[in-house]
């Protein structure tokens, strides 16, 4: 069971998306788990063949519990190890009925099912479990058409709505830890937005809506690029001290309708074109709100960016998400008097703030980092 945040203690396995015997590679989604942050797709870090499951759907297990045995590939598999007793085996699948796919519902019948040879062959070819199927033949016999129907059905049930009370508890635990352990310092600067907004207007005027960019994409890219020069803000603070991240994976704070917040990662944000970054952002927002994020997206962020947006207030004083060491916040763009060339002019500006961990960096470096973000936003065409 992967840890999807400093505060997570346990998770419930909802569904396996691969079967024993399947070959898996890094990045494959193998299972869905239910956590305080909603339903999360577990992607795998190893390569090999799934030997067997160690945890059944419906079971709640502590973080760190092996979920499956993977054979082949590297010997150090993420899932290898002793079987760990589950916490709540007494509540099988019904605990999360909305998630359970028809193929994984508990067996109801006793003894052998009647299955037509064609259905058996087709099911074997497609890797479909016969005992989960509803037969439409005589005495409930499973026919080829039943297998076809099951194969055509979406593999995942519609995710249930996020449990906002659970999410609130997760936020409370993480933020309490942050305020208890992290000696924050705060910096703020005002960024003039004329160049960004003019560039966006020009760029978007020739694009259909599906390809338009939002200011948020420019902000994320500017932060990611600036982090390349400021590694002490990108990474984790653990018992061993500060460790720089192995990539720039920008956690993007996404508000959940009805309350709640989640900050999944846009991996290697510094390497993505603005178009790709925007597409990732759109996808991430949609999945965060429907409760379909992947485990790596929650464990990967090496920094968090929070963007208050257009109907909001001017300044955010961020709380760092442990074990990260920095959070960059952008306020609402506002019209303000601005001095340019000795004249007071009306301009759109935005407050950018940095909350950073004093165990990993000092205010001087923080100021350079924030100023570098500003500088990059003055040349949006180069982002």
């Amino acid at each position, binding site marked *: 069971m992967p840890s999807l945040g400093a505060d997570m203690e346990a998770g419930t396995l909802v569904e396996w998306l691969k079967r024993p015997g399947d070959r898996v590679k890094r990045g494959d989604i193998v299972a869905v788990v239910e956590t305080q942050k909603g339903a999360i797709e577990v992607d795998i870090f190893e390569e090999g063949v799934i030997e067997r499951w160690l945890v059944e759907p419906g079971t709640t297990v502590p973080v760190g519990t092996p979920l499956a045995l993977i054979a082949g590939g590297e010997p150090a598999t993420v899932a290898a190890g002793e079987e760990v007793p589950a916490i709540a085996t007494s509540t099988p699948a019904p605990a999360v009925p909305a998630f359970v796919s028809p193929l994984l519902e508990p067996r109801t019948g006793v003894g052998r099912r009647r299955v037509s040879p064609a259905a058996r062959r087709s099911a074997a070819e497609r890797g479909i479990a016969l005992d989960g199927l509803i037969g439409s033949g005589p005495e409930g016999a499973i026919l080829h058409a039943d297998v076809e129907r099951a194969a055509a059905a979406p593999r995942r049930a519609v995710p249930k709505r996020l449990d906002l009370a659970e999410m609130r508890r997760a936020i409370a635990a993480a933020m309490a830890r942050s305020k208890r352990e992290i000696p924050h310092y705060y910096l703020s600067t005002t960024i003039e937005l004329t160049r960004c907004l003019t560039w966006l207007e020009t760029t978007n005027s020739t694009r259909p809506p599906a390809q338009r960019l*939002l200011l948020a994409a420019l902000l994320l890219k500017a932060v990611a690029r600036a982090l390349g020069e400021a590694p002490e803000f990108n990474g984790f603070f653990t018992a061993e001290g500060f460790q720089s991240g192995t990539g720039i994976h920008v956690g993007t704070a996404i508000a959940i309708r009805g309350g709640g917040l989640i900050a999944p990662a846009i991996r290697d944000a510094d390497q993505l074109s603005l178009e790709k970054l925007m597409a990732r952002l759109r996808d991430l927002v949609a999945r965060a709100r429907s409760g379909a994020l992947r485990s790596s997206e929650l464990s990967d962020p090496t920094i968090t960016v929070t963007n208050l*947006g257009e*109907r909001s207030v001017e300044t955010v004083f961020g709380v760092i998400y442990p074990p990260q060491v920095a959070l960059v916040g952008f306020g609402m763009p506002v019209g303000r008097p601005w001095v340019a060339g000795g004249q007071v002019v009306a301009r759109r500006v935005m407050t950018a703030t940095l909350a950073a961990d004093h165990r990993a960096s000092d205010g001087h470096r923080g100021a350079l980092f924030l100023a570098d973000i500003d500088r990059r936003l003055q040349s949006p065409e180069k982002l």
Partner: protein
Amino acid sequence: MNRNDITAVLIEELAGIAPESDASRLDPNAELREELDIDSMDFLNLVTALSDRLKIDIPELDYPNLATFGHAVDYLVQRLGAAA
């Protein structure tokens, strides 16, 4: 496609973005962004969906015309008329 059809499309797309609110009971003069708690990403998704479904271009410069439900219907009717 007449005004009623366009209104129905708009209600449907708003419901997709703000599922918990009842878009059919919106005050036609209220600001959509305020009323439905729509952020800039939601708004872009709304514009994308409307432009796909109605097969019209909605330039960024026209976004202010979509500020309220009533104005949005008027604007879409006019855009579709122009496209026909």
